[in-house]
């Protein structure tokens, strides 16, 4: 039966990401050493979950939901509006490191579609006009 040596891995990766903003090669090697878990396993977990990133991301992460209920409410327009306002494309980070934008799968806010997450906050019933005001509140 599997041992429990991996148990702290996911939480360690999350903490490291908070500290270093992303899971660099060095961070992954360090976690591997401190937990005694193979580097391949640490990288395997780090690259599996969409909330973990091995590439640098902005201080605030915008995740615009693109799943069907939001798609029906024109989520594409919301994504374009966010990207336009920040001058970046989905998957990119602003040059000042303030925001990253991603398209994400269902965030469970379908009753207020179209919706997005900024960090841990849910913003629903979005219209392109609301976007600027929402973005302003994130430094």
């Amino acid at each position, binding site marked *: 039966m599997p041992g429990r040596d991996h148990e702290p891995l996911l939480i360690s990766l999350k903490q490291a990401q908070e500290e270093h903003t992303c899971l660099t090669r060095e961070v992954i090697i360090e976690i591997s050493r401190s937990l005694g878990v193979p580097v391949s*396993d640490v990288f395997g*977990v780090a690259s599996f*979950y969409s909330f973990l990133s091995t590439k640098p991301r902005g201080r605030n992460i915008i995740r615009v939901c693109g799943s*069907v*209920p939001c798609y*029906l409410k024109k989520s594409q327009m919301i994504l374009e509006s966010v990207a336009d306002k920040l001058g970046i494309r989905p998957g990119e980070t602003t040059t000042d490191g303030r925001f990253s934008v991603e398209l994400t*799968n*269902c965030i469970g806010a379908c009753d207020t579609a179209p919706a997005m997450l900024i960090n841990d906050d849910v913003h629903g019933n979005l219209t392109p006009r609301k976007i600027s005001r929402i973005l302003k509140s994130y430094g």
Partner: protein
Amino acid sequence: MPQKRLVLTNCDVIDPRDIETHLERGGFRALARAQNAMTPDEVIEAVKASGLRGRGGAGFNCGTKWQLASKAEGDEKFLICNADEGEVGTFKDRFILAKDPFTLIEGMAIAAYAIGAKRAYIYLRAEYHHLLDLLNNALRQAGERGFLEHLDVRIVEGAGAYICGEESALMNSIEGRRGEARYRPPFPTTSGLWGSPTIINNVETLMNIPPIIAEGPQWFRDMGTSDSKGTKVFSVSGDVAKAGVYELVMGSPLRELVVDLAGASNVKMVQVGGAAGAIVPGHELDIPLSYETILGSGGVTVFDESRDVIDIVHRDLLFLAEESCGECTPCREGTEVMVEILGRLSKGDGGERDIAALKDLSEMMMLSSLCGLGQGAPIPVLDSLRHFRNEYEDRISKSMFLRTLPVARHTK
């Protein structure tokens, strides 16, 4: 049948931050009854007799699951509450967690007592991090009142992976591994978390436990159909006037939910159970909602006449392909190939043989995928082919015609 608030009885009535308001409504009396007046086996028998089945989508008999874990050999046993609600169009567990965390905790305490678990986990999806403080507060208050004397409940947060709602992938994730599905057998009830007997129950399933213990199994059995007892909580979204959470007695017609309650009109089709859910055409809305017919997780997405069926099914498969864990080939490759074919069909570049290929792929995936993701992915494909075959054929014949006109094809 009208709405029936059994699971949602306390929602918007109590203050989810204050256990006092829950106790005033009879909260935790079922736990006291279970612990003081019933043996663990009697609790299991009551749940079994109620006919309660899993509300997460698979529909396994809850009491039977508990019995298997209870009888399994193991020094340590675990209970996991699956709060990794990732099914597209499903948000009822979010609603429940935000409005009545106490009944869930009571249900967990009863379940743990029944199977002899000293440790329980709530696996909360990363997207629901905004509920973490509320849940921790509820656990603390329940602990201070002495309701968790024999049980250590921990919240483990996911990190963004739909597949972790699948029970074996969920356990891998709690173990700190990639959320990949496991081969079964062994089943979690004999060899689950770290190889110990484990039961994994959906939030809504556990919400049903306190009322079953308080009111008795017969009261619960009196609601619903022959194989679907009690109520079901539905999440309704899409082309409706009033998107939201509704609770109905099992066996209620789909029409009552989407038309009468949610205010849908000009319904072309309804998808029930998320991206891999069944598709019901607009002229079959009288179908009852039950395990015998359609149910899944209770995610209900409504599409009006303006929607393009092939486009929607293509998007369903895009989601499933992206979220496939990649562990087994039929799902990893099958979903990708389906995306490619449906994309072609949707754009008007498809041919007759694409339909045959979709059917062959569907059969292969349903037979050989490791878990419900790959086994379920063909459902919307096959359902749309069954009910909207004409739309596929129209698109194909138009694209064949366009191909005979080189200019038209390039400007399309």
